[in-house]
């Protein structure tokens, strides 16, 4: 599929891609998905979907080193939650992330 954009929209898309470090194609897809999610949603849930979309856009990255760093921090988060459960609820605790 090819989509024709106005020069102004194309420039804004390129500028946002450069600012966030996300590829132009990926960014365009994210923005279209976000807009369509809002269209499809039940009105009272739109704010929640928008918050999730904004979080994804704010934290988007294509940098493998950054993603690797985030995965390490995510493992720390999971381990911390599990260890707290075991420390407070005992060895038979229902850990959060089995």
């Amino acid at each position, binding site marked *: 599929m090819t989509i024709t954009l106005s020069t102004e929209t194309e420039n804004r898309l390129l500028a946002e891609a450069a600012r966030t470090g996300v590829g132009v194609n990926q960014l365009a897809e994210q923005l279209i998905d976000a807009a369509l999610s809002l269209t499809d949603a*039940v009105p009272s849930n739109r704010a929640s979907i928008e918050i999730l979309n904004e979080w994804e856009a704010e934290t988007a990255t294509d940098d493998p080193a950054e993603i690797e760093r985030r995965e390490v921090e995510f493992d720390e988060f999971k381990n911390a939650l599990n260890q707290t459960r075991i420390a407070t*609820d*005992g060895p038979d*605790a229902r850990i959060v992330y089995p």
Partner: protein
Amino acid sequence: MRFIFIDSGPLGLLFQRAGIAPAEACRRWAKERLAEGARLIVPEIVHYEIRRELLRLAKTNSLAALDRFVHAETDRFRVVTSKDFVTAAEMWAESRRDGIPTADARALDIDLILCAQVRNSGIPLTDMVVATSNTKHIARFVPATDWHNA
């Protein structure tokens, strides 16, 4: 109307940064359920567990986004009430009488407070489910399933 109570597993995934595959899958799941009109509910005891860990790890941006999400809908955040503690105490005693405790006897037992919040929500059991990453223990007391299937 379908009501989905979010347990600590999926709630802890929702505001991990982009690039973490399980977190991205969980956000897709949440958006799909929201788009279908489901009500996503965050029990206070679950919010407490995730909030304290994000604070300890100084994840201020994640915490701010989580709090925005939790308070985005008026019916999302369910406070723990005195009635919930009464119900949790009954379930605690019942599980120990049956010889199947959910946690060490000294522990406050987050699981049972969660189950009490769900049971006391006033929502018919047929219209609700707890979306979790570990159904151990809690599925004995309330409808619960892996969040991917909720």
